[in-house]
């Protein structure tokens, strides 16, 4: 039986999520044996054309050319999986969605006329059908291996949609909000990282975006009672997953 053909492609992003695959030091050789990696420019100059059985997509859509390119990649792909906050939510660069992008381009580039960019950064699902979304800024490599293994086995990946709070309880962390009065986005943030920040005496800052069910208004009130300013609350929701509906809406109410 031929091995499934895997592609890893990139749009606007930092390369960190695809690096997660190369960071699977113990599993990399086995993964490369289980699938045929046919298009992964960060790792190999052997770039073969589609079709691909599974395509991992990193990054968000920010240029007219990329908006076209994702359609071709979708057409070439059996299963299309988005990896990371950029591809699933627009990423940090979606902060442009709330600002004047022409002014931003002028602020960074001496010759703005050389730059072609869209006035928004949008997730892949705004453009094409996505078969599975893996969250995180960056993704968790354990979850990445779970998704690849599940797809190879023909089953649905086990990636829970509950909040970071559950992971904190599982890890036996002391609640930083209750015990230390540290504002934390954990109650509204999608699990997946393993509750790293509270384990380091830090409040969660929302890398994995909104959990499946959120009560952002209640959390914002808690933050206020702990001394957070309206601007702090606005900034917390308007960072790596700013363009997701629950975080966008809550940020709009503060500032």
């Amino acid at each position, binding site marked *: 039986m031929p091995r499934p053909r895997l592609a890893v492609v990139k749009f606007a992003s930092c390369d960190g999520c695809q690096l997660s695959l190369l960071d699977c030091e113990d599993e990399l*050789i086995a993964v490369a044996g289980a699938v045929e990696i046919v298009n992964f420019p*960060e790792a190999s100059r052997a770039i073969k054309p589609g079709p691909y059985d599974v395509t991992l997509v990193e990054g968000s859509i920010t240029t007219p050319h990329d908006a076209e390119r994702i359609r071709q990649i979708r057409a070439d792909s059996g299963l299309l999986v988005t990896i990371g906050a950029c591809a699933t939510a627009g990423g940090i*660069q979606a902060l442009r969605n709330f600002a004047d992008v022409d002014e931003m*381009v002028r*602020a960074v580039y001496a010759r703005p006329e*050389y730059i072609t*960019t869209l006035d928004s950064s949008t997730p892949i699902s705004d453009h094409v059908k996505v078969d599975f979304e893996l969250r995180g800024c960056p993704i968790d490599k354990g979850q990445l291996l779970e998704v690849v293994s599940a797809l190879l086995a023909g089953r649905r990946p086990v990636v829970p949609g509950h909040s970071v709070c559950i992971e904190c309880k599982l890890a036996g962390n002391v609640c930083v909000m209750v015990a230390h009065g540290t504002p934390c986005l954990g109650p509204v943030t999608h699990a997946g990282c393993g509750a790293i920040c509270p384990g380091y005496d830090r409040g969660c800052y929302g890398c994995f975006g909104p959990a499946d069910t959120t009560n952002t208004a209640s959390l914002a009130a808690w933050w206020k009672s702990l001394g957070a300013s309206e601007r702090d609350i606005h900034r917390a929701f308007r960072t790596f997953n700013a363009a997701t509906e629950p975080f966008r809406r809550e940020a709009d109410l503060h500032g």
Partner: protein
Amino acid sequence: MADVRSIRVEMLARVEGEGALEIDIENGAVESVRLNIFEPPRLFEAFMRGRAATEAPDIAARICGICPVAYQMSATHAVESIYGILPSPEIAGLRRLLYCGEYIESHVLHMALLHAPDFLGFEDGIAMAAEHGELVVRALDAKKTGNALMILLGGREIHPINVRVGGFYKVPTKAELAKLLPGLARARDTAVAMLRWAATFEFPNVEGDWELVSLRHPTDYPLIEGRIVSTSGVDISADEFETVFQETHVAHSNALQGSVRARGAYLTGPLARYALNFDRLPAHIQALAREAGLGPVCRNPFKSILVRGIETVYAAEEAMRLISTYTQPKAAGVKVVPRAGSGAWATEAPRGMLWHRYEVDDEGTIKTARIVPPTAQNQPAIEADLLEVARLHVDDDDETLKLACEASVRNHDPCISCATHFLKLTVNRR
């Protein structure tokens, strides 16, 4: 009739980010070489305005998933310079230790998986593993040790969460750090083995005449602290960077290009650090370099794999030294009190010097941000190399020419994702 040959490398592989190459050849002579960066602009310097300066390390990290520690260190120290915070020796030591983790991870990834395949004729590190399995397995183990250091000190290897303005959120115990020592000793031995292995490769006989630029520290091999110096006599503080260096914007690229105002192209990165700081390496590491065929200055960009090997040995040994002398500080950091001002800082990312400047108001809100990543600084030097390599291979077939040019770019471990603010190969033969 003019002899027209047209070659394109649409997508440069085994680099971080998206770019391509374009070469114009007319009547068998290379006319020009262009590195196109089509990595889309993400506009960090624009959207960092209005954010808290204390958010700068976490936000700046997202510029690059390959060297997030570099971004966090340059941002953190730039903001601390504004706020009058001087890290304690224990905090400074932990930050250097975290940076050693990134050096080991990034350099071993580049040497084994991205660069070595060019010398041995493989498409990638995984294909290379079929013939050089033991070495690839050892390299992956060393890479994992670098990551383990970042996981312990940073919380995770990509976009660590534990760095903050004023220190860390939480500091490790000596016992937690000591557990990393056996892995670091193995990583050190692996780096020596990789260096000796790479020293047997055949290197094209090319030398770059670029001005070399790096940090220099009074006593240490530079990572986080030092003055900016060059082989042409530059010796300035990070605050003075813009008086000597400039970024310009060219039509073929989404990246800005760095140059020395008075002279032109310059190079940062392993070759520059090594040449300007050879005397800061311990004698036994200098001896290892000589054994691998390196003098105190190396200007052959293909031999950068050897210099990365030397730096990996250094990083592993330095990490072991920092762990053995570590005393856990009572506090993970100091309280941060915002004040208005501006401050600049440069640190040495594995692929070159990374300079940040922030201007902050009295509430600690960023008014302006400016970030000059290594690959933007190196782009003109990389193009100069390409011109020489293309001329060397102009009579070869297209595939050989293409491969030589790609390899020439990979010599510099460019990170295109951060240079957008880098690359496509098109060869036009007329």
